[in-house]
């Protein structure tokens, strides 16, 4: 118990100490947390009428962002798998960072769903025993189950590894017999949460543009592009500002994954566009609306072409070794563009245009409100705050700067 207490204390103390850039970043996040607290209060007391959602476009920015968090959370296994499946030594130490990303992003996704719900106070109605779960019919029930299991799998994995490293009992060769299966389960669970999330959308026959079999494939390839982009940036920052050892081979592997996930994404987009646009039936209506607008409603058009252009551009850019190896300049830029491109793709291509035409033939544009926008930023700021602090604490443990000292009075070793 004493060990656990000092683990929590030392890690937290290490996590909140940093240089001026670190504090500036935290302060930057706190601005959005402060503003977002007010806008969240407004939304939770006055209702979703403060968002841009309508009976025609019933999913708001929160749901779109939730799908994106599922992308990143699922993709974190791409950092865990090489270490555990292929026994890559350079990756095995870093696997825990992937699990942290998964954990934080799943938690963020669940938070977005709370913002999406009209009655978050009735959440317990979904808990079996207290409430009722519509199993096995409702896809949202499956999604709730897989997201929660994934959250706790990763939370457990992260705590187990970090704690044992902290007290010095972690031996990669002699992982407890029950621990390796848990890691494997967590790796398999990553794609699972994403496929189920795709099915939550694809299960709605009336959403013509979602009722397609390529949706999970599109989701997984976008996950493979956006998740590693974030992790590459984290690794590049970590090796620049800390003693964490991240070799070029790790970055190169992740860059390859990003590039070919984007390659697969091109194929998925092309396949979907061909199969709906050639025959041009009602299944093509929302895609055509997204691409060209309709009767003067063309809000999504620049977003569509901008996002497609960005993703194709990033794919081509990553084929050049000079850009892939420009660790200080081009690579972070490309990673940022991929991450941001896929993030913006969610509302502007996947979610909002899919609601037009509505079942009764209405074409609608979605106008994000200020309150909704700051609520989204609030959730993101919280996500990045937790991500920064947990990753920083983990780096302290991985580099050995934070260690358990029986004799010393549990202070952070300054080295």
């Amino acid at each position, binding site marked *: 118990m004493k060990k656990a207490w000092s683990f929590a204390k030392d890690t937290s103390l290490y996590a909140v100490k940093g240089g001026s850039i670190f504090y500036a970043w935290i302060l930057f996040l706190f601005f959005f947390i402060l503003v977002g607290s007010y806008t969240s209060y407004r939304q939770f007391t*006055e*209702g*979703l*009428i*403060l*968002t*841009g*959602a*309508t*009976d*025609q476009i*019933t*999913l708001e920015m929160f749901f779109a962002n939730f799908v994106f968090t599922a992308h990143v959370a699922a993709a974190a296994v791409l950092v865990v798998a090489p270490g555990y499946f292929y026994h890559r030594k350079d990756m095995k130490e870093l696997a825990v960072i992937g699990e942290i990303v998964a954990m934080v992003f799943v938690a963020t996704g669940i938070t977005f*769903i709370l913002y*999406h*719900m*009209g*009655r*978050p*106070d*009735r*959440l317990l*109605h*979904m808990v079996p025993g207290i*409430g*009722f*779960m*519509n199993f096995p*019919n*409702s*896809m*949202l*029930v499956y999604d*709730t189950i897989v997201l929660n299991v994934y959250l706790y799998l990763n939370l457990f994995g992260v705590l187990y590894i970090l704690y044992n490293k902290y007290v010095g009992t972690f031996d990669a060769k002699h992982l407890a017999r029950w621990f390796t299966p848990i890691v494997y389960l967590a790796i398999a669970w990553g794609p699972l949460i994403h496929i189920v999330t795709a099915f*939550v959308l694809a*299960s*709605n*026959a*009336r*959403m013509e543009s979602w009722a397609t079999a390529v949706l999970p494939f599109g989701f997984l390839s976008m996950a493979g592009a956006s998740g590693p982009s974030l992790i590459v940036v984290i690794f590049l920052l970590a090796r620049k500002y800390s003693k964490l050892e991240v070799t070029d081979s790790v970055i190169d592997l992740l860059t390859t994954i990003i590039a070919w996930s984007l390659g697969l994404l091109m194929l998925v987009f092309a396949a979907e566009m061909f199969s709906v646009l050639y025959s041009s039936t009602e299944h093509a209506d929302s895609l055509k609306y997204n691409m060209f607008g309709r009767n003067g*409603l063309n809000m999504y058009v620049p977003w569509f072409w901008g996002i497609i252009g960005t993703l194709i551009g990033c794919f081509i850019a990553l084929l050049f070794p000079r850009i892939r190896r420009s660790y200080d300049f081009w690579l972070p830029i490309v990673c940022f563009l991929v991450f941001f491109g896929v993030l913006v793709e969610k509302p502007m291509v996947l979610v909002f245009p899919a609601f*037009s*035409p*509505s*079942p*009764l*033939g*209405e*074409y*609608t*544009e979605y*106008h994000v*409100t200020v309150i909704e926008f700051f609520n989204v930023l609030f959730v993101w700021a919280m996500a990045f705050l937790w991500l920064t602090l947990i990753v920083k604490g983990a780096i302290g443990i991985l580099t050995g700067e934070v260690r358990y000292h029986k004799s010393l009075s549990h202070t952070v070793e300054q080295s």
Partner: protein
Amino acid sequence: MSEDKNVKMEESADLNEGRREFLKYVCTSSAAALVVAPESSGAVVEAANSADADVTVAEFFQGHFVLMSDEEKKQAIARLEKRYTAKYAKKTTVSDVAAPDGVLFGYALDMSKCIGCRRCVHACVEENNQSREGSVIQWIQVMKIPKGNISFSADELEKGYPEKSKFGDYGVQVGGNAYHPAGLSTEGAQSYYQDETVPDKDFFYLPVQCQQCEKPPCVKACPVRATFRDHAGVVLIDYNWCIGCRMCQLACPYQARRFNWGEPNLPAEDMNPKTHYFGNRPRMRGVMEKCTFCVQRTREGRSPACLEACPVGARKFGNLLDPESDVRKVLATKRVFRFKEEFGTYPKFFYYIG
């Protein structure tokens, strides 16, 4: 549709802040009941005084209504009656009459008779206590669909892509006369027409409301079974159990479900005090609602409000199991179709050409 959104936002901003706070206060506090009291009768005052915060708390912890014991149901009903009576300052009854046995409710609508007057829409709003201002809720949406006679024009004859070829096929891919819908189609349908007089001779009208599917996708999608089908075939919602996730709205191919985006705005003087638990009792913010075939009327053998309001007799309602009912006679003698039958939902709402 952006216009509709703008209206919603403006009206929500216009809503007097003080009034909203006031209503919220009334809803949760017994002190506020005294403020209401002077305007109301003695019996109401008595009921209002006991509608305190405990009522709200007990309501918060209640389970799914269908799964409640008879005693719990009685208490839940009493709580609601107390709360509504206090809030709207009129004696409100909340019924939980069960659906009659041996009945399967069905509806038939004669689309050749409908003149698009929307009297059904307004009768429904009044009967079912829908939100009037702020977030406007109407369970029936009337589509105004262009007749084929205005779809084709000689001007379009040589328009479109590809241009004239040696086969003479103009515009067989894009544009030209191919781009004008004709007949029963949601393409080109207008639901927000503001005509001085109806019917418009170039259009026909198709009212759409909950189709009470035999295979309802909304019931399948609901994660908490807040929406379910009763044994008379009507899909209902327990407003106190709904978590507001809107998966049902996403699943519905008829756009029949309406969400309470904000606090519903139901003026006390317009409130219909004869309510049913699953039907027209006032709803709260953040829950789904939709047409219930007027469960508070039809379970007592009356007709739905929309049927009674229809000036041209386009609407027929009845028991699908009874060969003598109006709806069965329509099915036997008319050309009947189901709207969007390709979704495989098997609605019990039929359209016919009379």
